[in-house]
C-alpha cells in the first residue's frame, strides 16, 4: 500500500470524485489557482477547470448557495478554510441544509459536503485554532465525520461526496502532513463506523480526530506502567457508533472520552452521556472527560499548551478512572 500524506489522501478523494461524477464541483477560498492554503486541492483546477472555483470571502452566502445547488442536481464540495469560520455557515446548515430532507422528504436530495479544519497547536490564536465539533454534531439531519488517518481521510471524504445527505468533514491542521498507508482502489469508508485503533483491556480511550493520536501516545505511556488502554477512533461524530463504544466499555469497564472542542456542552459531554445511557452497568468508575479548557484559545505557546488537551492530560484522566 502506498504511504501518503493526509492532505494527499484528501486530494486523491476529490480527484476521484471529480473524475467519476460530472455533477461534483469544488469551491472555496484560495482553492483553485493556489491549490488551497493547506494544499488539499492542489492540481484540481488544472485537471477539472471551472468545476474547481476560487470564491470571494463569502462563507455565509456560499454555504447557502451550495445547499441549493446540491438540491438541484449538483454535488458541491465547499471548503471553509478554518472551523473558526463555521459560525458564518451555520444558518445554511441549521435552518436550510438539515431540514429539507425531513420537511420535503424524498422530493429532494442534498448531496452537499462541507470540508473544514480546526484545532490548535500552531499559534494561530483565538480566531484560528478552535474545534467547533459540537456546533455541527448538534444538528439533526447532518452527518459529521472526522478522519485521523490518511486512509480514512480518503475513504470518508469519498463516502461524504457520494452520500445523498449533507455531510460535514472535520479535518485538523496538524494532520495534513502526517503520513499513512492508503489502500489502492479508492473504496469509500462507511460513515458511522468507529475503529479500534489499539486494542486493550483496562481502560477505553474514546477519541476523535487528532486526539486519537494523543490517546495513542497516552496508551504508550500507560503501557509502561502495565496498563493496557484500548483506543477507539470514532471517525464519525454523527451518526455515532454506539455499539463500538459499548463493546469497548463492556470489556474495560473504564472510559475516558477525549475531544478537542470545549468541554461544556461539548462533544465529549455527549460521549459521556452516551456511555451513561448505554453502558452504565458496565462501568467501574465515572467516565472521565478530557477537552479543551473552557476559554478562548490563547496565542503564546505556554498558554495554548495549557488549554489544548494532550497525552499527559489523558494519562491523568485514565489513572483517575482506574484509581
Amino acid at each position, binding site marked *: 500500500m502506498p504511504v501518503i500524506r493526509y492532505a494527499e489522501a484528501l486530494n486523491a478523494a476529490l480527484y476521484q470524485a471529480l473524475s467519476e461524477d460530472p455533477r461534483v464541483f469544488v469551491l472555496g477560498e484560495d482553492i483553485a489557482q493556489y491549490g488551497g492554503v493547506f494544499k488539499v486541492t492542489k492540481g484540481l483546477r488544472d485537471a477539472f477547470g471551472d468545476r474547481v472555483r*476560487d470564491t*470571494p470571502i463569502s462563507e*455565509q452566502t456560499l454555504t447557502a448557495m451550495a445547499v441549493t445547488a446540491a438540491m438541484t442536481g449538483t454535488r458541491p464540495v465547499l471548503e471553509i478554510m478554518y472551523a473558526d469560520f463555521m459560525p458564518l455557515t451555520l444558518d445554511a446548515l441549521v435552518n436550510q441544509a438539515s431540514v429539507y430532507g425531513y420537511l420535503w422528504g424524498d422530493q429532494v436530495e442534498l448531496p452537499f459536503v462541507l470540508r473544514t479544519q480546526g484545532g490548535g497547536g500552531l499559534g494561530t490564536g*483565538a480566531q484560528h485554532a478552535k474545534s467547533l465539533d459540537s456546533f455541527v454534531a448538534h444538528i439533526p439531519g447532518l452527518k459529521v465525520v472526522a478522519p485521523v488517518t490518511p486512509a480514512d481521510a480518503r475513504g470518508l471524504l469519498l463516502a461524504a461526496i457520494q452520500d445523498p445527505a449533507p455531510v460535514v468533514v472535520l479535518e485538523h491542521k496538524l494532520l495534513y502532513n502526517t503520513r499513512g498507508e492508503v489502500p489502492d482502489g479508492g473504496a469509500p469508508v462507511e460513515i458511522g463506523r468507529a475503529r479500534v485503533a489499539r486494542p486493550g483491556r483496562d481502560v477505553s480511550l474514546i477519541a476523535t480526530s487528532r486526539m486519537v493520536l494523543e490517546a495513542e501516545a497516552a496508551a504508550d505511556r500507560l503501557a509502561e506502567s502495565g496498563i493496557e488502554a484500548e483506543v477507539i477512533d470514532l471517525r464519525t461524530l454523527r451518526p455515532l457508533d454506539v455499539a463500538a463504544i459499548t463493546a469497548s466499555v463492556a470489556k474495560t469497564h473504564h472510559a475516558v472520552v477525549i475531544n478537542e472542542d470545549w468541554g461544556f456542552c461539548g462533544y465529549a459531554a455527549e460521549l459521556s452521556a452516551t456511555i451513561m445511557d448505554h453502558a452504565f452497568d458496565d462501568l467501574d468508575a465515572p467516565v472521565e472527560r478530557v477537552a479543551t479548557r473552557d476559554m478562548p484559545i490563547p*496565542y*503564546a505557546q505556554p498558554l495554548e499548551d495549557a488549554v489544548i488537551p494532550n497525552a499527559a492530560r489523558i494519562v491523568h484522566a485514565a489513572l483517575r478512572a482506574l484509581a
Partner: protein
Amino acid sequence: MSADLTPLANRPSIDDHLTMHRRMAITRGIEQELGALHKAGRTRGPIHRCDGQEAVGVGATAVLTADDYVTTTHRGHAVYIGKGLDPRKVVAEILGRETGYNGGRAGHMLLGSAAHGMLGGNAIVGASIPAAAGMALSVQLRRQDRVAVAVFGDGAAQTGICHESMNLAALWRLPVVFLLENNEYGLTVPYTAQSAVRDLHVRAAGYDMPGVQIDGNDVVAVHQAVAAAVQRARRGEGPSLIEARTYRMEGFSTSDVGGYQSEADLARWRARDPLTVSRAALVESVGADRVEAVEAEAAEIVAAAFAAALADPPPRFAPHPASAPYATPGPVRGAARGAALGAA
C-alpha cells in the same frame, strides 16, 4: 490613482508629517525584524506583514485623537503604531510575551488597547467593519464627539457584513469612516477575481455616501482624505468610504510560499514605496538631515523594542474565571480524586 484624488485640503503640518514618517519607519522596521526572526524560527504562527502599506494605517490614525476609535485587520501593525501604541509592548505581544499589551494572549492579529481607542486587530475577515460601526453607534447614542474608523481589506469588502454595515451606518448617519485598504489581494486571489467592479469605492453610491479613491502609498493623501471624512462624521453627516490603493509587498503572511504576484507589479509598487514617497516630500520641505534623524530615531526605537521584548519572560498560564462554565465547583468523589482533579 491620479484621477480621483481628494482636493488638497487638510494638509498635515510638517510636524505631523514627520510624526507619520517616523511611525511608518517604525512599522517597517518591525516588519523587517519580524521577517528576520521568522526565518530564524523565532516567531510563532503566521505573521501578516504590512510592508509597503504603512501609509494607510499610519496616515489614517494620525487624524484621530486618543478618544477616537479604530478597528483593523489581521494586518494591523501600522494601525497599532499609528494610533500611538508603544512599539515595545506591541512587539512583546507579537512575540507572545507577558509584557505585551495583552500578555501574549492575543498575539499579533488580535491586539487591543482600550486606552488608545484601538479595539483592535481582528482576524475574522470583515469583522472589523461592523465593529467600528457599533462603536460609532455608541458614540451617537452617547452624543459624544468621537469617530470610529474601520480599516479593512479588498477581500473583506466582498463579505456580506460589509454591505450590511455600510447600509446601517448610512441609514443611521453613524460617525464612521470605512477605510478600504486595497492591496490587490485577498490571500492568494487577486481582487479582480473577487469583485465584479474594479473600483471598489464606487459602491459608496449604493449607500448614498461619498466614496473616493486615493493613493494609499502617499501618507499625506491618506491623511487628507481621512481628515475630510472624519470632519464629515463629526458634523453628524454620516459615513464615508475611502478606497486607498496600495500593494502587498511581502506576501500574505510569513507562511506564504508566494509565486503568484508578478515581478512587474512588485517592481512598479516598490518604486512607489510609501517611505520613499514620504521621504522625497519631506526632504524637499525640511532637508535630508532632519529626515535622516527621524529615521535613525525610528531604527533605535525598533532595536530597543526587540531587544527588550526578546529578553522578556513568556507568560504563565492562568485560568480565566469569566469563561468558566460552572458557577460552583464540580463534583468531587473522594479526597484522592479531588486532589487529582487539581493536578489536571
